[in-house]
Each structure stands twice: as structure tokens, then as C-alpha cells.
């Protein structure tokens, strides 16, 4: 049996992909692609809930609509994709 290697994370110079937590990654993704946005109308400000945004994202991607940041949702967020937002602003 091999002993699992202790993996060390290094900040590589010039690497703009920062090591993010899963929650941070999800929030960035949901904002970037239009699922999570602050709506400002007549001074009223509301934040679409993360769970609702996740459900919308899961629906768009054909994933199970759990509203949770599950493994398949996280994997989908890490996959290469087009930069055009999924939800129009």
C-alpha cells in the first residue's frame, strides 16, 4: 500500500487562477454567468438566493436540480466553457 502523498500547494508566479474554496468558486461562477446578481430597481436591492441560483445553473447544465453545491455541480463549474453569460444581463 502506498501512503498518500502530502500535497503541497504553491502559488505559481503569473498564475491568475487563485486557489479558491469551493464556495468561493461557486459564487464567482454564479455571478460571472449571470445566475447570481444584485438587482437594483428604484432603490430596491435584492440578492437572488444562492440556492435558487444553483438550481437555475443546474437546470441550464442538465444537472439534477438540488440547489446544493454537490460534486457534479462543482465539477461542471470547473469545466472549460464559453465566456458568454448563461443568464442575460
Amino acid at each position, binding site marked *: 500500500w502506498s501512503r498518500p502523498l502530502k500535497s503541497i500547494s*504553491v502559488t*505559481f508566479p503569473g*498564475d*491568475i487562477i487563485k486557489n479558491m474554496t469551493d464556495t468561493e468558486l461557486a459564487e464567482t461562477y454564479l455571478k460571472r454567468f449571470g445566475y447570481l446578481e444584485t438587482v437594483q430597481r428604484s432603490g430596491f436591492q435584492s440578492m437572488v438566493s444562492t440556492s435558487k441560483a444553483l438550481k437555475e445553473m443546474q437546470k*441550464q*447544465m442538465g444537472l439534477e436540480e438540488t440547489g446544493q453545491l454537490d460534486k457534479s455541480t462543482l465539477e461542471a463549474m470547473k469545466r472549460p466553457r*464559453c*465566456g*458568454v453569460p*448563461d443568464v442575460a444581463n
Partner: protein
Amino acid sequence: YKTFDGDLKWDHNDVTYRILNYSPDMDSAVIDDAFARAFKVWSDVTPLTFTRLFDGTADIMISFGKRDHGDPYPFDGKDGLLAHAYPPGEGLQGDAHFDDDEYWTLGKGPAVKTRYGNADGAMCHFPFTFEGKTYTTCTTDGRTDDLPWCATTADYSRDKKYGFCPSELLYTFGGNADGAKCVFPFVFLEEEYDSCTTEGRNDGYRWCATTDNFDQDKKFGFCPSRDTAVIGGNSEGEPCHFPFVFLGKEYNSCTSEGRGDGKLWCSTTDNYDEDKKWGFCPDQGYSLFLVAAHEFGHALGLDHSSIRDALMYPMYSYVEDFSLHRDDIEGIQYLYGRRTGPDPTPPQPNTPTTAPNPGPTDSTDPTKPTTTTTARPDPTNDACKLDKFDTITVIEGELHFFKDGNYWKRSREGDGELQGSFSISQRWPALPAVIDSAFEDLLTKKLYFFSGTRFWVYTGQSLLGPRSIEKLGLPNTIQKVEGALQRGKGKVLLFSGASFWRLDVKAQKIDNGYPKYTDAIFGGVPSDAHDVFQYKGHMYFCRDQFYWRMNSRRQVDRVGYVKYDLLKC
């Protein structure tokens, strides 16, 4: 499918595009071709036409850029965001941008087009062997001038076919030096440079001077990426240095150690700990064709689809034999309507619009096809715009190219003009639009056509079939016959998948001892060729737009483009 709010679309069907710059990852000709094919995806199913402009403002301005590239949506380094495009409209609208921190290929690893050498610009063949050693990348071995080269067939020692790989020592692109090679060392702002540099630029592109003094001559070009170069990081364009030291440990290959994302990287000096110079190792890359086809969908007015197999699904996945999903077709046709003009797959029999001329006819002679006199070519159907054919074969000494209900032909002399398109149904009315394979029996001059699991035999205008290919003794597991090679009189090899069978034409039976594996007998050609045929004493194996030519000693003596070498486009 989804369209943008307000159903944004072009108000004209003759859409123009302009390629503003190129990626160093692939030859400009390969990039041009990828974009042209990506537009064709949409023009095939709509009345839209796409015309390339070389200056001025086009509807769709195409460019490569990194990170902050001049619009409000910066890219994010390697992977993640690949590209974006704007819906139709004026100015930035309609434009398509591609992240040049990605490794752009045709989706299956380095797509290296050669220059010079003796292979007529063929693509490198990886792996290839040279003096007993196998190479999976371009090499400078065997040369004293440091120019990287590759073989364009599997075995250089046998075939001696080679070309030079992208290198700043051979040429540059863009800039103002007409593609001249770099001159090292060169002086820039009174400093001397021995290699390409990103100094003086804020877009991350590597450049060099093409004279020994940039300050004085102001002549420069961008450096093409070598296939061995790292991607991104802080050493773009440099090769990995093996072995290298990282956190005190020595590495002889790319590693994902130190990274949380599992991406493979390497140091470009012998010691990362000291020099901190690194980059990502070349991988399969992203298909520029597929990504461009998706982005051009946006540029024409399509938003993201939620159907996983649709082209307009937001995530990238590589598909080998791409075809547009019904959802994409419905979306684009909602905006622009269907393609007008002649149906490209007309199965209906020919009905002359004018009365035929009275006079002698040889239609009673079954050995003489009369259809060449009635079939009129349609020059608007341009074979040069096709990337791959359903089948290619020689009939009556003329090379025939079949595609979607049409065919073109070129005389045996080879330099004769390409004629067509002609309608298959006009000349051989019983045949379906898609012909997977065809051959002419050298003894009887009968023509055999294969489509799916059926075949037809034409003797002049008289017809036999369709019959099941099982009748010939082919197994019921094969979906189609993809190629045919005459082996002397009365014997024909039939190819399907990675195997082939020998047909005794007279007995109409497959010989014993078959199938055999294609790569066991025909080494060095793609085992998944979709067209196999005999022409002027050579065997041709085609895959996509390329062919592998094999001589009678079963040596691959040439690899080239069907479009340029056989169609003479």
C-alpha cells in the same frame, strides 16, 4: 435553443468576417481553415453566406487575446473561459474573441503544419521514428542548425518525408517584417536579447526583431510557438527543462505537484525553487474549429442552449465527427430561415425542363451510360469548400468525389479541370444520396456502390440491387463499407472500421482468412480511414481533409490534403 433578448440578428444575409490576428499555436493557414469550416457549419443550414475581408470593418471581427484584451470581459488564463462573442450589431457587437492563454489545436494534440522540407506542407506525423528512436514531438536531432523538424509519415528512415516545424529561427507572423525570421541577438531599448521576449508589450505575446537592432530598424514579428513549448505560466514559449528541481525533489517529466487543480506543469530551467520559471505542459488543446463554431453561433444571434449535445451548450467537449444538433439548426433557422436554392441531397429522379433533342441515342446499349450527356454540372456546388467526401473512387479512368447526393470528377491526366457538381440520382437513379464506398470491377467494368449495409451493381444503366452486404459474406456487425482497393483482376479489398476483407468479385464471396487488421498489413496509414481507393497505381487512405498515399511496396510515400493535391483547389 435560445436567442438573445429581442431576437438580435443580422439584417443582411451576406455576413462578412475579418481575422485580425493569429494565435502562435497553429499555422495561419490551419487557423484560416478552422474559421472557414466553422462558418460553413452555419451557412450549410441557413441562407447566410460568409465573406472574408482583409481590411476595413467586417460584421464579425475575430481576434485572439489574453486576459484584459480590450473589452470589459477579461479572459482568465489557461482553461476556464475559452472564448466569447457578442450578438449581432454594430461596433463590438458580432465580434468573437479567443483566449490565447489556451492551447489551440484541432482538439487532438499539437496540429503541426510543416514548412519547406519535401512534404509539401503536410502535417507532422506523431509519433514518427528516426534512426531507431521514436519521436512524439518535433526534434532538432540530426541537425546542426537547431531547426526543429518532423517526419510527415510514420517512419522517416523509410519514407524520407519531412518538413520544418514552427520556429522563430524559420519565420515570424504578424508584425511588420513580412514573416522574416528572428535575428539573434537583437537590440531593444539598448538591451540585447538572445530569444523571443514579451518585454515592451502588455499583451503577453512573444516577439523578436528581424534585424539585429530593433531600436534602429523597427522591424519585428511574433514568434510561433514550438510544439514543445509550455503554455502560459511565466515562460510561455520556452521548452520544459528536464530534469528540474521543485521543492528539493527532482522531476523528469511534467507534474501536477504543487497545484490544487491537477494540471500538469514543468519548470523551464533546471531549478524551479531558484528561478521560479514555469509553464503548463502541452496537452490535447481545444479545437479551434469547435469553439469558433460555437462563438459564431453567438455572433449570429444564438444564446446558450441547455441541451448537452448541442453546439450552443456552454461547455466545451471534443467530438470527432462533428455535426450540427437539431436544436442548433432549429435555433438558427428560427432567426434566418432555411437554406434556399437546390437541396444538397436531392434523391428525386431527373425531370428535364425542356424537351430532349430528337436524334440518335445509345440508350439501348447498357454498357454505355448516357447520363453524362444529360447531367449538367452545377458550378455553384463547390467541391473545394468541402472538407471530406463520402467516398472517392476511379470510374472510367476518372477520379470521382461523392458527397451528399452530388459528385465531381477529374480526368485521369490529373491536370484536367474538376467537373461538377453532378447529381448522383441523375446518373445512377437507384442510389441513395450518401455513398460510403464504390469501385469499378476492372474485368467487367461493373460499378459497385455501397451505402450502409446495402450495395448496388450498375452495368451501364442496368441495375442489380440493392442487396445486403451480408450476401457477400460480410458480417452483420459492420455498419458500412468505407473503402475498396482492387488487388489484381477479380479481387477487391473492402475496408470497414479497422479491418478489411477480400472479395472475390466473380464468385461474389469473401475469401477465407478474412477479416484482417488494416494496421497489420497497411502500416502507417490511419486505421480509421473513411475513404480508401486506388489511383494511378497508389493506394489512398483518407481521414478528414488529409490523405495518406501508399506505394505498391506498401510504403507511405506522401501525406497531403485531398483539397489541394487531388481536387487541385
